[in-house]
């Protein structure tokens, strides 16, 4: 806690004034002028209270010692265990620029477009649960300095001859990319991190712990080497494309190696020691059963990203309502014969089957967090995760397959009476609906996450 020099009250970072503000006497103080005794010491670490969720093991930091009663990661309402600890001091920080009210408005505006989202996600009580968290990031600075050599060629026609000229090309590159940032927290998913990116890193300021007052911070537990190749690749790709568009070489076609390691050598790509930074994120979790959904808003730019499940009832009601204008439009434009209708229904059933298979793949990847390298880097090297589908994801394709088979049989029998084709189309509709409902269940799995289990002290798999 940072004490107010006037009244001894708690000084917290005030987003509007970008200063520390006393809750009681409203005194404003420059964050760099207010320090705890230990903050002032020349050290690579600073004191924090580490709150650990007894259910998922998620850890969250605060400069305040008052009890935390809610886990942002698994959504559990419980008193979090706390301990005083030292954390490595980040070099820079982007202080919160978006207030909680602004964040809520951004989120509400996003949710207005999400017409099939469960009402709970739009509930004011739920929205009040946004919590300001500083997420640790690794900031990579990439430099490229030195001579570059390439091969080039030009083809042209003159008289009755075709010519191809071969060139040795060279030049001096001098490029630098500062602060390419990747989140250093295994509890913050790469997907959400990439969706709320980028942060305007030109607005970073030197870190001082008092910026954290009134907010929480996530722990940095991902090694800096995890995202180094990503940073190098962005720098290499950018430099490569800019060299290729150099006016002096504009009449040539030439190539520069595509392989990452060759490009590192060719462009003299060098990565400086990554810096620890902290970026502001408004964070909210919504727990339902054994799944949790997150909503995040970039605390600097206001860019929002959220896991938005689909409410099956709203979806069905919405589909019925949408069917009406489609029905009127079809009536206006077409008169389909029963056999054509059955054929089209069977085709749509086949499309639904393909969607189903695609979704299952995505679910597996996301459910096992196979696309989250920050998370995977922190997992023990045990057996590879099972590729077996989550139970809700199994068997959904039977509906559409049955619909296609029924349609095929009817076409083979080729009956005269319409009702055969109507019956086949109804079977196709039921089959498609069954598969789509299964896809929605899968989508809800995709739109939410397994309750996190961080392999940290305090985590309890049985919770």
């Amino acid at each position, binding site marked *: 806690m940072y004490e107010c020099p006037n009244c001894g009250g708690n000084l917290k970072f005030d987003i509007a004034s970008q200063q520390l503000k006393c809750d009681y006497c409203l005194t404003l103080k420059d964050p760099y002028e207010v320090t705890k005794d230990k903050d002032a010491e020349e050290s690579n670490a600073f004191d924090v209270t580490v709150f650990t969720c007894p259910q998922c093991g998620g850890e969250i930091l605060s400069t305040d010692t008052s009890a935390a009663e809610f886990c942002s990661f698994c959504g559990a309402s419980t008193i979090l265990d706390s301990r005083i600890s030292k954390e490595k001091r980040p070099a820079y920080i982007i202080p919160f620029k978006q207030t909680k009210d602004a964040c809520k408005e951004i989120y509400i505006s996003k949710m207005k477009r*999400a*017409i*099939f*989202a469960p009402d709970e996600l739009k509930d004011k009580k739920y929205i009040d649960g946004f919590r300001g968290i500083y997420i640790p990031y690794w900031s990579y600075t990439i430099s490229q300095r030195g001579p570059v050599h390439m091969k080039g060629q030009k083809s042209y026609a003159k008289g*009755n*001859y075709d*010519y*191809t*000229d*071969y*060139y040795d*090309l*060279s*030049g*001096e590159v001098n*490029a630098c*990319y*500062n*602060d*390419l940032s990747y989140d250093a927290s295994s509890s913050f998913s790469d997907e959400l991190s*990439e*969706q709320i*990116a*980028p942060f*305007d*890193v*030109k607005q970073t300021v030197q870190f001082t712990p008092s910026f954290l007052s009134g907010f929480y911070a996530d722990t940095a537990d991902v090694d800096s080497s995890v995202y180094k190749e990503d940073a190098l690749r*962005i720098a290499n*790709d*950018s430099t490569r494309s800019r060299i290729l568009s*150099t006016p*002096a*070489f504009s009449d*040539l076609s030439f190539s520069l190696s595509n392989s990452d390691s060759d490009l590192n050598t060719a462009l003299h790509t060098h990565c400086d020691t990554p810096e620890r930074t902290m970026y502001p994120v408004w964070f909210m979790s919504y727990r339902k059963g054994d799944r949790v959904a997150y909503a995040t808003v970039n605390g600097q730019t206001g860019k929002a990203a959220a896991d*938005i499940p*689909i409410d099956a009832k709203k*979806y069905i009601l919405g*589909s019925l309502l*949408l*069917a009406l204008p*489609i*029905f009127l439009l*079809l*009536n206006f434009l077409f*008169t*389909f*014969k029963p056999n054509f209708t059955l054929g089209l*229904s069977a085709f*749509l059933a086949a*499309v*639904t089957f393909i969607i189903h298979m695609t979704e299952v793949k995505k679910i597996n990847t996301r459910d096992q967090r196979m696309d989250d390298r920050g998370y995977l880097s922190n997992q023990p090297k045990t057996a590879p995760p099972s590729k077996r589908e989550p139970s809700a994801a199994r068997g959904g394709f039977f509906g559409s397959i049955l619909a296609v088979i029924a349609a095929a049989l009817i076409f083979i029998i080729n009956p*005269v*009476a*319409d009702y055969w084709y109507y019956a086949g*189309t109804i079977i196709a*509709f039921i089959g*498609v*609906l069954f598969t*789509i409902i299964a896809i929605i269940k899968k989508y809800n799995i995709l*739109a939410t996450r397994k309750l996190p289990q961080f392999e940290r002290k305090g985590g309890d798999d049985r919770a």
Partner: protein
Amino acid sequence: MHKQIKAIAAILMLIVSFSFSMTVHAESDKDSSLPEPIIWENSETGYFVLLQDDAQLLTSEEETQLAKEMRNITAYGNAVLKTISYNSYSASSYAEDFYYDIFGQSSGTLFLIDMDNRELYLFSSEDISYTITSSYSNTITDNVYRYASKEDYYTCASKAFEQIQTLLTGRRIAQPMKYICNALLALILAALINYFVAMRTASSAKASSREILNAISSQFAFTNPQKKLTKQNKSVRATSSSVGHSSGGFSGGHSSGGGGHSSGGGHRF
């Protein structure tokens, strides 16, 4: 008097063309003892009722009654009922050929009961075809095919011409096939479209490389660009005459049927 002579001449011409048509189709019909057709002309419009029950599906009373019912249609065009027991073509080809052979590019509608293909086909030409569209032809044949399945050919044809008459007088007919098919398709399409809408509204795009680069401070310079010619390849260009190239005029096999407007639709029974 002059009008009567004109009407008699028209009927004679029709009989001649009909007889010619019969000689063409008689070979395919394989039945030389065909019943006499019923022909009646609307003296005001010049359009005809033509009823020929080659497949002998109707009693003479039914034929007479049907011909009476078909007269109302002659206010708009020719009304033809044709039944056949043998057809080596499709029902649609037969109906179209038969109508054009007799009436040419004249407004009218033909209801064909093809016992060989077990198919009903409704063909309309010129003015009538703008009202009795292909969609309506499909609807009408769908509305009446059950009578044909039950071998009640009189009711089948009678209902078909009744519905044609209803449409020609600007009223509506029941279209259960259209509504059932469209309702089922609308439900399936809505479910799929809604799924994509839900996906679209729920997802957030990841930041692109360009966005990331715009948000950081970067510098780039590429100085002293040099190019040094190291090798040149020269080859004789292949001329156009040496390339196997053939050109030929477009010979489109397009035939025009006179540019008339027609419609048609049918249903098996």
